[in-house]
């Protein structure tokens, strides 16, 4: 669908916002979302937050070895999830995307199974926690090397263009990723090809301890799209509706054959970089508190409340229901049992190789 008017201007100095801190709709166009969609966005955010909190608990219980906290990123991720067609479009995510994955329908028990490396993980427990992937939903398995999934994301988008499938790629990454050479090589190629892809930067202003001022001399990540010949949008990523609408427009543009977009979502991570990090050494508690007050979930609650779509009691009931769902999923994942060690020799190649058969025998003799 080619439209002659688009809602959003690229390369704005100020972030695009559609609801203010008090929850007022401040856009210059009418809201066109059903109550159902608004409630789904809310539910996805809360579900992502609670999942993040549960991961901290299974970490303390020793059921997992690593967590990448995502609290603070929920509005961006729930908004993006709503903008794509899950199972049709392809997603090339990074390790901080649990809200996004849960929102597109990645079964939560499989997310847990990946965290705990049990047999229910379709990735067979091959990677450290927070590295999910699910072919059924076109979710490309997360890899640790920062930005390394971005060139493959572009390749998939070029394939979609060549084959005329009408699909779109959404790929996410952090602010730090935008400094990697492969990131630039990928965006440059996508621009030259006019590939149907949306590049989504979840800019939480830190790459572990390195703040964005040290990451780049550029004030905004969005601006970098200019050099590659496509629009870059600078968005308040703690505003779920801004996140959704801008992502939707970027996806529509890609689907219409207008090529890539870069969307920079300004977010904040409330937790440390990971369970192996101590963020107290590089950022003040005042700073964290300042951003806590801008929490995307209460902000959207204020918006919904003004429209009669939310009460504290309803919110509480939703939380209780989600907690029960998560506990059930966790139990299911755990019950699947550990991945056996000899699985390590599978999936190196499509067909057997004598060398690996020999080495498997070495392992089996040790068990």
């Amino acid at each position, binding site marked *: 669908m080619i439209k002659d008017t688009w809602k959003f201007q690229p390369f704005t100095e100020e972030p695009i916002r559609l609801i203010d801190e008090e929850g007022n709709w401040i856009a210059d166009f009418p809201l066109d979302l059903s109550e159902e969609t608004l409630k789904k966005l809310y539910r996805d955010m809360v579900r992502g937050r609670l999942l993040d909190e549960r991961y901290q608990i299974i970490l303390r219980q020793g059921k997992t070895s690593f967590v990448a906290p995502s609290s603070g990123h929920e509005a961006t991720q729930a908004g993006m999830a709503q903008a794509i067609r899950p199972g049709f479009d392809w997603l090339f995510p990074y390790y901080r995307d649990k809200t996004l994955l849960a929102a597109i329908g990645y079964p939560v028990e499989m997310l847990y199974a990946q965290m705990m490396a049990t047999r229910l993980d379709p990735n067979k427990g*091959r990677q450290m926690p927070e590295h999910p992937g699910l072919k059924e939903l076109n979710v490309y398995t997360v890899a640790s090397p920062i930005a*390394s999934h971005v*060139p493959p994301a572009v390749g*998939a988008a070029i394939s979609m263009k060549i084959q005329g499938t009408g699909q779109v790629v959404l790929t996410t990454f952090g602010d730090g990723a935008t400094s990697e050479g492969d990131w630039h090589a990928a965006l440059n190629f996508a621009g030259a090809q006019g590939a149907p892809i949306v590049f989504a930067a979840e800019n939480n202003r830190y790459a572990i301890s390195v703040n964005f001022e040290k990451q780049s001399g550029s004030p905004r990540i969005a601006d970098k799209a200019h050099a590659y010949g496509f629009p870059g949008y600078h968005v308040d990523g703690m505003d779920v509706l801004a996140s959704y609408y801008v992502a939707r427009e970027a996806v529509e543009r890609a689907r219409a054959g207008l090529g890539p977009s870069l969307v920079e979502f300004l977010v904040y991570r409330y937790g440390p970089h990971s369970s192996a990090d101590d963020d107290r050494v590089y950022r003040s508690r005042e700073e964290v508190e300042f951003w806590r007050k801008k929490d995307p979930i209460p902000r959207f609650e204020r918006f919904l409340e003004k429209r009669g779509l939310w009460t504290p009691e309803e919110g509480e009931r939703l939380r209780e229901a989600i907690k029960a769902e998560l506990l059930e999923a966790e139990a299911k994942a755990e019950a699947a049992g550990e991945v056996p060690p000899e699985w390590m020799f599978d999936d190196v190649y499509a067909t057997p190789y004598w060398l690996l058969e020999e080495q498997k025998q070495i392992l089996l003799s040790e068990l």
Partner: protein
Amino acid sequence: MAVLNIVQAVKRALDEEMARDERVVVLGEDVGKRGGVFLATEGLYQKYGPDRVIDTPLAEAAIIGAAVGMAAHGLRPVAEIQFADYVFPGFDQLVSQGAKLRYRSGGQFAAPMVVRMPSGGGVKGGHHHSQSPEAYFTHTAGLKVVVPSTPTDTLGLLKTAIRDDDPVVFMEPKRLYRAIKEEVPDEEFTIPLGKAKVRREGTDLTLIAYGGPTVEAMQAAEELEKVGVSAEVVDLRSLVPWDKEAVLESVAKTGRALVIAEAPRTSSFASEVAATIMEELLDQLLAPVYRVTGFDTPYPYVPDRQYMPTVTRILNFAKKALDY
């Protein structure tokens, strides 16, 4: 039967596979109208168009990385890296993304792709146009590595590599591109990966080689014959998977082996083969297994030929093995 050189064999393999399977696409620097700097893709752009013969930006990470994503999404990309020496900007994409995609996703995703690269020296290119970087790739689980030495093998192996469901690094010995011509069957054929070829039979000594130095190994065998030594030449053709059985069978017969390769010796694939022979055949060996390789220096501009295992070097090591 048509007479083909190695470049023409590459071109024919690509053409046949593109005609057979429309998922096969070619991408790389100058592969389009120019037909590649070695002309290995000549005419393909005109025949298959810009969607299937893609001129890419000058960025190997983009070329290899995009190939991984294309493959994951259902295409069968064949990426050309202009010289093997320029694969390094794309190294991470091959090693972290392509090689491990099947494994890290538990077999859900795969990267059936080929990365072709002209490799090896002897073309007066200095160290940045002459290296043999296969060991970086044989050291990486999940990649297959193929190094042909004749036009027939190039044709048959490249076609198999394109049909293979895993990422294959296909290293073409560029000094042989136009140096060897041979009759190649007109009808379609493929050659399986992981099967070595006995190029010449012998009883006293096995010369194990692959790629460019297979030529010097054959010449050395002829020289040895003149002095009454019967040398067998085994061309590995494929390093991952490699044909241990064929190698052991030959060395069990001769009792002596040289492993010959252009790449530097330290941590080389030649070392892997030599170590395996010694582990498995120690009591049948009449001499140590020697590695006859390039030197552990960067590849020099001068002397361009003496860096590589020359016939003289092979004969000197053969004497050592025979006199042991």
